[in-house]
């Protein structure tokens, strides 16, 4: 038996699951607008979304984990920029090239991330996998690897035809 749960194919995945998987990415967009000055609000929204849906199929779980985990480092960087800017502005430190370099680099990565998130959301809606660099592999590992407890859950027959 394989170490990993079989890949579900688009035709096997119910529409509800596709929509929930897509929601993992869209959640971030909604929260991003609300919490722009505070970079952790989108992470908070994603964490809540994750806990609401994590008991779903590996397909949904994969997209939840990929979206949530990839937001963490980027949000940390956004936080660093905001904190650094506040320090510079209110304590008269001035803005160095190092700061502007980081700010632009972070802005570029944010834009790239948004583009990839949209692609991932569309893929999820179509019942397809979409792997981000590093986070895709990590999420696959976490969502699809066969674990003891999950195995028992998978094999246990709860539903039976009427006797």
């Amino acid at each position, binding site marked *: 038996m394989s170490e990993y749960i079989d890949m579900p194919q688009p035709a096997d995945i119910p529409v509800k699951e596709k929509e929930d998987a897509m929601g993992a990415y869209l959640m971030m967009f909604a929260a991003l607008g609300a919490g722009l000055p505070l970079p952790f609000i989108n992470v908070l929204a994603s964490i809540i979304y994750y806990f609401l849906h994590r008991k779903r199929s590996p397909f949904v779980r994969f997209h939840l984990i990929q979206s949530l985990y990839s937001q963490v480092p980027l949000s940390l960087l956004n936080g660093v920029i905001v904190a650094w800017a506040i320090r510079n502005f209110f304590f008269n430190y*001035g803005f160095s090239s190092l700061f502007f*370099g980081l700010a632009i680099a972070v802005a570029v990565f944010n834009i790239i991330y948004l583009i990839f998130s949209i692609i991932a959301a569309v893929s999820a809606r179509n019942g397809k996998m979409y792997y981000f660099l590093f986070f895709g*592999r990590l999420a696959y590992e976490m969502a699809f690897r066969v674990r003891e407890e999950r195995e028992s859950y998978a094999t246990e027959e709860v539903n039976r035809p009427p006797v």
Partner: protein
Amino acid sequence: MKRKLFRDALILLATFGLVWLVLTLVLPERDVEKGWLSEDQEEKLSEFIINIIEQQFKVIDSTEYDEGLDSIVAILHRQMESSKQKEYKVKVLGNSEINAFATLGGRIYFFKGMLEMAERPEEIAAVMAHEMGHIEHDHVIRRLISEFGITVLLGISTGDTLLIKEVIKMLSKSAFSRKQEREADDFALNLLHDSGISPRNLGTLFRKLQEAYDSNIPNVTIISSHPSVEERIKKSFEYDMEDFSEVNHFIPWPGVTYEQEDEESIEVEAIDSEL
């Protein structure tokens, strides 16, 4: 799997680090202290502010003081090896207030009241050295930025009269921070010492200001309630004079006459200051 995860993480980190590094190197080096303001912008701003000041206060043609002030500038500027300012310009404003202030672009303004009170040119040199200290340490531009913000400052040329009034008021009336005053004082004491003018002159001038205002010191830039005047006078009088040698600069000043026997050195000094 783990190895590939590790590889992916490395690729991500390296890409980010590289982008940051390249951007940092590509971006023009900025003056960390002054932040966003480019040299060009600063120049325009200072031109505008100078115009406004000279419209608001009456610049007087004070031939009696001009020569003296110019030679003080020359004497002090000669000792400033790494001066940020190419040249300093001093103008006299026809106001009886006892005050002096520095603005952008190496401009220093003296109110007539201050010149009349000082009596001796060495004391005016002390005030000038103090104002030069503010300029050399970028206090003026930094205070303008922290008070008004860069966007507002750059928009000043739109002619917002209320804003212009506030800027002028801040430059001529309000005091710098405690730390900045101390920096300017230290700068002045050292510069006076190097120029062969006794640093004690700063103290005696403060003493005169104190008497002129009858200990009820208002907020004028040169002297303010903080740091305490007593403390600043004390610092001037306690300045280490061990290796100090006084130079007689023969600064031309109304009411001050120098003994004629030293004619030769007067000529040398005159040639010096012309250079």
